[in-house]
């Protein structure tokens, strides 16, 4: 059986969970087995994971699982895997999934692949999985040769697909250790799609000349439905908050559309964004290296081009 850990908040699953269940169910078909989805904590709206191809939906409900704790979650998922006889565990490649992957691998004596792209290839009892390495500059294919396998799947790798219907949620119980981490507070930026989940990202760099000019970037982002990002020099100069920094030493992203405004395209920046499906580069310097990595390029003064693009998007939407 393939067991998918589906992340949820207050009983609501996120896009990453739907992607993981879709991936898990397709992997289960490949392996000729069933796919079970597991949620931890509040289970109120988790039955619809069945729509994304899960054959069963399980939940472990315990007050200590309301907040993420890598030790408790590892005990819960490993316990469920043992009870259900699962041999492949699928996680989303999120802050939560990445923190669990290594722990689960050790606990279950499993080989692991972190941030897998594409479905596994079955080779006898082994699984072959590809992932980005060198911060997106290359791809490596890993071979997992252990009986137990743990995989985290890269975000935006496949579209969640509704193939089934809602299922009843079955409760399971496992032994949990005492929590040693206390979550005091969770601060969320409301109303913003987090960068790793964003399908469209509008990003700007030093070409903006100063933080006071960001209005045109925000206008475009609002019109096109994007999350805003920035290059490293911009974050280092405190023009924009650090969490907006995308690139090799910032957030690595792979949206459907990446619009780079006034960013020259240093190799360290490209490493974090070059897996975007479509890249638009707007720069006044026709020699900017970013054009070599772009699908569409515009050479021009960004202070004129960006408002024109915003207007064109508005007109298209009114359409």
């Amino acid at each position, binding site marked *: 059986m393939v067991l998918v850990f589906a992340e949820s908040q207050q009983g609501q699953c996120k896009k990453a969970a739907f992607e993981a269940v879709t991936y898990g169910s397709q992997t289960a078909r490949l392996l000729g087995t069933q796919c079970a989805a597991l949620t931890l904590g509040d289970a109120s709206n988790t039955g619809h994971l069945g729509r994304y191809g899960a054959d069963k939906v399980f939940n472990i409900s315990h007050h200590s699982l309301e907040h993420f704790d890598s030790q408790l979650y590892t005990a819960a998922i490993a316990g469920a895997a043992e009870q259900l006889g699962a041999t492949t565990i699928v996680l989303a490649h*999120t802050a939560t999934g990445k923190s669990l992957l290594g722990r689960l*691998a050790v606990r279950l004596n*499993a080989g692991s692949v972190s941030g897998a792209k594409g479905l596994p290839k079955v080779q006898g009892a082994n699984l072959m999985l590809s992932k980005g390495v060198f911060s997106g500059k290359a791809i490596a294919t890993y071979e997992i040769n252990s009986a137990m396998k743990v995989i985290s799947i890269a975000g935006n790798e496949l579209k969640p697909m509704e193939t089934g219907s809602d299922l009843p949620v079955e409760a399971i119980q496992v032994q949990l250790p005492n929590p040693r981490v206390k979550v005091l507070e969770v601060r969320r930026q409301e109303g913003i799609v987090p960068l790793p989940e964003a399908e469209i990202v509008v990003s700007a760099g030093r070409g903006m000349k100063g933080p006071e000019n960001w209005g045109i970037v925000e206008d475009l982002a609002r019109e096109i439905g994007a999350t805003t990002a920035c290059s490293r020099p911009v974050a280092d100069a405190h023009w924009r908050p*650090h969490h907006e920094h995308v690139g090799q030493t910032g957030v690595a992203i792979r949206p459907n559309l990446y619009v780079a405004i006034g960013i020259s395209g240093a190799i360290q920046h490209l490493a974090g964004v070059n897996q975007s499906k479509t890249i638009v580069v707007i720069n006044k310097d026709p020699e900017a290296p970013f054009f070599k990595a772009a699908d569409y390029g515009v050479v021009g003064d960004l202070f004129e081009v960006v408002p024109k693009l915003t*207007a064109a998007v508005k007109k298209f939407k009114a359409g």
Partner: protein
Amino acid sequence: MTTSMKILVSFSKTPDTTSKISFTEDGKSFNSNGITYIMNPYDEWYALVRALEIVEKNGGTVTLLHVGDASSEQLIRKGLAIGAHDAIRVDANPQSALFIARQIAAVAREEQYDLLFFGKESIDYNSSEVGAMVAELLDLPFVSYVSRLDLEGNTARLERDIEGGVEVLEVQTPFVVSAAKGLAEQRIPNMMGIMKAKSKPLKVVAPEQTPDLSTPVQFSLPAGKGSVKMISPDDMEELVRLLHEEAKVI
């Protein structure tokens, strides 16, 4: 209240961020010709520096740990020059995250460390696994993606970066932490540090044998983009049309 801390900081050796990546012709191994190696930025800039700040304030020691062959010693000396008190090198060429984690756990079992620091990921294999693995091997709490860490006695208050926000947590030492941007500011070693580093203790230990359950067997470079399509700065409606009809992303 201050409590003297015994801290272990592990680092990995990675190609410099400006490196052009290539592989041997058969795609089986990384081509290290012309590559300059550095300490993994997250390990050096954030994990090591925050560890040093803690012992500078509270007293204690920072031990630097690396799994790698003798060619890494220059990087270890750099870490000592930045301020680590001593270093341990496990003499092996690591093949997997699990191998590295087992070596680190074996070293950590010899001494009682209050804090074990890692960078949030290495910029070569980007797996983000080693810290979590070590925490599991030692049965310790693990707090990942930490952008703030303050200690009061044995109680740490941490901020952890999550998608679209921050989690504020409290945990008692000992525990394992992985460092994200913002936890500290990069330090450049000064001449005094470089001189002192030459005489700081560096212990070399033999690795534990452990099977690799997951290893990279084939490498490739991503398919390059076709040539870029240039659009007139006066025709943004054409760009929008292409994004909708050709790229199908809006």
